[in-house]
C-alpha cells in the first residue's frame, strides 16, 4: 500500500496529481490542467485539455482561445467544463469536484479524492459576499492547500460599504473632476462596479478600453453592471463628476491625461499599508481585496480543520508560524510563477 498522499506532489510549477497525470494551475503547458480560476498566474494557455468551470473557460477562451477552433477547424486546446458541485472522474481513479471559492467569476476550489483521501486546492479565495460570484464553501478535507496573499496579521479588509462610501464622498466633493479607480481587469473591476451600483450609484461609469471585453463577459454571465461607457468615446467634460475604471498600470500613464483632473484611487488589499499606496501615487486608497484577509485565512483553516495545511504563495512564513502556534501541521510549498497581482 502506497504512503498516504503520495499520489499528490507539489512541484515548483504546479501541483501534480500523479495517477491522473493532471496538474492544478500549472505555470507551464501540460497535457491535462485543472484550473481554479482565470487570473493569469493560475490560468495559462497551451494545455492539451483544461478542466475548469464554464465561466473560467469562457475567460480563458477570451484570453488564450482555450476551447476555440483554429483555422483548420480543430480544437487544439480542449475545454472540459465542470459546474459547481459537479464531479468529474479522471484517469487513475481520481475524482475532482469543483466548489465556489468566492474569488472572481468562475473561481473554484478543487476537491481531489483518491484512495479514500481528500485534498482541497483553493487557488485564491475570499469569504466576503461578492455580487459577481457565489460565496466560498467550506469543504472538509485531509489536506487543505491554501493561498496566503494577505497572510500577515496586519491585513484586515474593512467592510466594502465603507470603502464605497469613501469613493462616493470624494466624488461628490469634486463635481468638476473624476475619480479614476485602478482595479485589476478581471474580477476587481467588475466587483467595484457592481458594489457601486449596490451603493446606489447609477450614473454611467467610464471604462479604459482594456476592460471592456471582460465587463461584457461578466454581463453575459448575468452580472448587472449598469450603464458602461468607453473613455475613448467621450470628452473631458462628459466625464466630470464620474467614476472611471482602468487597469492599475494605466493610473500614472499618459492615457490618464485625457481625463478631467482625475483623483487617483486604487482598489486593492495592499492599500491597507500607506507606503504601498504612496509607491503607486494613489490619492484615494480603497482597501478592497478578492483574497481572504488574515482573520479569514486563519478562520478558514480552523473551520476546514484539515490534518495538514499546505501553503502555496504569498506571506507563507507568517501563516506557517500561525499554524505552528496553533499546533497545526503545515508546510510551505515553493511555488514559482504565482505573483502578488495588483489585488
Amino acid at each position, binding site marked *: 500500500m502506497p504512503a498516504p498522499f503520495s499520489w499528490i506532489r507539489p512541484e515548483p510549477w504546479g501541483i501534480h496529481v500523479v495517477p491522473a497525470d493532471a496538474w492544478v494551475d500549472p505555470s507551464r503547458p501540460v497535457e491535462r490542467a485543472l484550473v481554479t480560476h482565470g487570473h493569469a498566474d493560475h490560468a495559462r494557455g497551451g494545455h492539451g485539455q483544461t478542466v475548469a468551470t464554464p465561466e473560467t473557460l469562457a475567460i480563458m477562451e477570451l484570453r488564450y482561445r482555450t476551447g476555440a477552433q483554429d483555422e483548420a477547424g480543430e480544437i487544439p486546446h480542449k475545454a472540459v467544463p465542470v459546474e459547481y458541485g459537479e464531479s468529474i472522474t479522471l484517469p487513475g481513479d481520481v475524482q475532482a469536484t469543483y466548489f465556489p471559492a468566492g474569488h472572481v467569476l468562475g473561481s473554484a476550489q478543487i476537491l481531489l479524492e483518491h484512495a479514500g483521501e481528500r485534498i482541497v486546492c483553493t487557488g485564491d479565495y475570499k469569504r466576503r459576499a461578492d455580487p459577481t460570484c457565489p460565496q466560498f464553501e467550506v469543504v472538509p478535507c485531509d489536506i487543505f492547500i491554501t493561498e496566503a496573499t494577505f497572510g500577515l496579521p*496586519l491585513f484586515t479588509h474593512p467592510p466594502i460599504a465603507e470603502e464605497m462610501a469613501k469613493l462616493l464622498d470624494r466624488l461628490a466633493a469634486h463635481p468638476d473632476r473624476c475619480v479614476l479607480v485602478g482595479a485589476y481587469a478581471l474580477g476587481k473591476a467588475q466587483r467595484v462596479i457592481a458594489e457601486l451600483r449596490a451603493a446606489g450609484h447609477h450614473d454611467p461609469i467610464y471604462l479604459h478600453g482594456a476592460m471592456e471585453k471582460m465587463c461584457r463577459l461578466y454581463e453575459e454571465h448575468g452580472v448587472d453592471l449598469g450603464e458602461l461607457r468607453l473613455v475613448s468615446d467621450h470628452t473631458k467634460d462628459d466625464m466630470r463628476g464620474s467614476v472611471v475604471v482602468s487597469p492599475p498600470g494605466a493610473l500614472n500613464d499618459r492615457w490618464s491625461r485625457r481625463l478631467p483632473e482625475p483623483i487617483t484611487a486604487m482598489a486593492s488589499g495592499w492599500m491597507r499599508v*500607506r*507606503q504601498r499606496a504612496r509607491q503607486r501615487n494613489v490619492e484615494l486608497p480603497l482597501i478592497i481585496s478578492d483574497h481572504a484577509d488574515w482573520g479569514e485565512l486563519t478562520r478558514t483553516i480552523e473551520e476546514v480543520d484539515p490534518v495538514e495545511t499546505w501553503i502555496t504563495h504569498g506571506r507563507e512564513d507568517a501563516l506557517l*508560524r*500561525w499554524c505552528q502556534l496553533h499546533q497545526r501541521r503545515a508546510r510551505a510549498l515553493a511555488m514559482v510563477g504565482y505573483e502578488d497581482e495588483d489585488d
Partner: protein
Amino acid sequence: MEEFAALIDALVYTRSRNEKLRLIAEYLRATPDPDRGWALAALSDGLDFPAVKSSTIRNLLKDRVDPVLWTLSRDFVGDTAETASLLWPAPEHPPSPPTVGEAVELLEGMNRKSVFVDLPKLLDRLDASGRYALLKLATGGMRIGVSSRLAKTAFAQAFDVSVEEVEEYWHGLAPPFPELFAWAAEGQAPPDMANLPTFRPFMLAHPLEETVVDLADYVAEWKWDGIRVQLVRAGDETKLFSRSGDDISATFPELLDVLPFPAVLDGELLVRGSHQGGEANDVTQGGAASFNALQQRLGRKTVSKKMLAEAPAFVRLYDALLIDGEDLRALPWTERRKRLEALMARLPDTHFDLSRVVEARDFDHLAEIREGSRDDAIEGLMLKRKDSPYIAGRRVRYWYKWKRDPLLVDCVLMYAQRGSGKRSSFYSDYTFGCWDGDPDKGAELLPVGKAYSGFTDEELKKLDRHVRQNTVNRFGPVRETDKSLVFEVAFDSVHESKRHKSGLAMRFPRIHRIRWDKPVHEADRIEALKALIRD
C-alpha cells in the same frame, strides 16, 4: 487628535505641493492653541519624547503579538509606527480620544517605566489612523513628504505673513509657539529676537552640472570638506549651529568664547590634524585634516581634553550675516566680503581664518585648477554671484557648487536589505565588496561599503527582482545574493577604518552604474581601493 490624524492621512496621500500647503494652512486656521502649535512642531522639526523610542513601541507590541509575526509584519510594512498602529489590539469600546495637547502632555509625563503602562492607555483611545499619527508624533520624524520649510510656508500662507519673517523668529521660539500664533494669527507684536543667539537659515547652492558661468559676475571659493556651521553671538552668549539648525555648541566648546562681539557668521568647521601647518601651497590653504579626522569629533556630548588638544576645531569663514547687530544680508556678496575681511583683525587666528577666493583667468582655467586640486580637505569649488544677497535656502543662479569628480571602483553586490518609507518592500540598500586577491585563484569578496542611492525607480525594480531571484541566504530582513552582479560605485574618498573587515570605509558611496554586462571576476580588488587612500 482626529483632525490631526485626518490631516496626516490626507498629507500622506497628496502629491501636489499646493494641495499640501492648503491642507496644513486650513488645519492651522481651524484648530485652537495649543493643538495647532504642537501639530506645526510635529510637521516641521519634530517633537522629542525621551521615553518613547522606536524600541519602546517594538517592545510594547511584542508583548501583545507573537514576536515572529511582529517581525514579519514590520519587515513587510517598513515602518514601526505604522505596523504598530495596524496590529494594535483595539478595545471594543474605546474611551474618548485625547486632543493633541492632551496627548503631548501625557507623552511628556511618561518615563521609561511608566511608558509601558501609559502609552497603551493612550493607544486604546484611538483608531488606527489616530494611533499612526500619535506614534509618528511621539517618535519624531513624520516622514510623510512634508519638509520643515513646507510646514513654515503653510503657516505663512494660513495667516498671510512672509515666510522669511517666520524663519527669522522660528529658531528663537519653542513649541507650541504661542508667540508665533499671537503675532501671525492675532496681530500682536512680533517676538523680540535681538538678544537671543538664534539660528538663521543658511543660503545654499545648486549643483553646477552643465552650467558655465562668467567669472566677471562670479567669484570662486574652495568648498571645504568639513561641516557647514553658523556661529552666533547675541546677549553675551555664543552658539554653534549645524547646517540643519541643530545646536552643536557642546561638541565644540573651544569655539564658544572666541567671538568677542555680537555677530552671525557662516563658515566651515574643520579640525587641525595630521596636516596641521603643512601642505599650504599657493592654491589651497592647508592646515585642515581630512573629513575622517573631523568625524572623530562629531556627535559627542562631552569632549575630552586629549581630543581638544589633538584635533582642535576652527572655523574657515565664508560669509557674515550680522555684525555688531547690523544686518548685512541684503547687501551684495562683494560688500559682505569686504566687511568680513575687515573683521578678521578682530578675531583670533587660532580659531578663525578666511576662506580664500580662488583666482582664475577664465572658466576653463578654473576647471583646470579644480582638476588639479588634490588636497583632502577640499570637496570642490563654490561659485557665488558677486551681487548675491544672503537669502535663506537654495536660490537659482546665485550660488553654485561644483564638486570634484568622484572616484570610481567596480564592486560586487553581496547583501541587500529592504528600504523603508517610500521604498519599503523593495530591496534597496546594497552592501558590496571587492576581491581580497585574485578571484580566479580562490580569492574572496570582502564588504567595502553600502549604498542606497544613485539608481532610478526603474533600476530599483530591476535590482529588487535580481535580489529576489538570486538569493542564497536569508538573515532576517537581509538577503545574501549569489554575488553575480557588478556595481560601478562612485565615492568621494576612502579611508582606513577598523570598523570594517576590509579595513576600509568609503565616504558617500553611491551606485554610479549597474554593470549587468560585467563578469564579477573583473570587479576591483581591495588593493586598488587602498591605493586611493589619501590620508
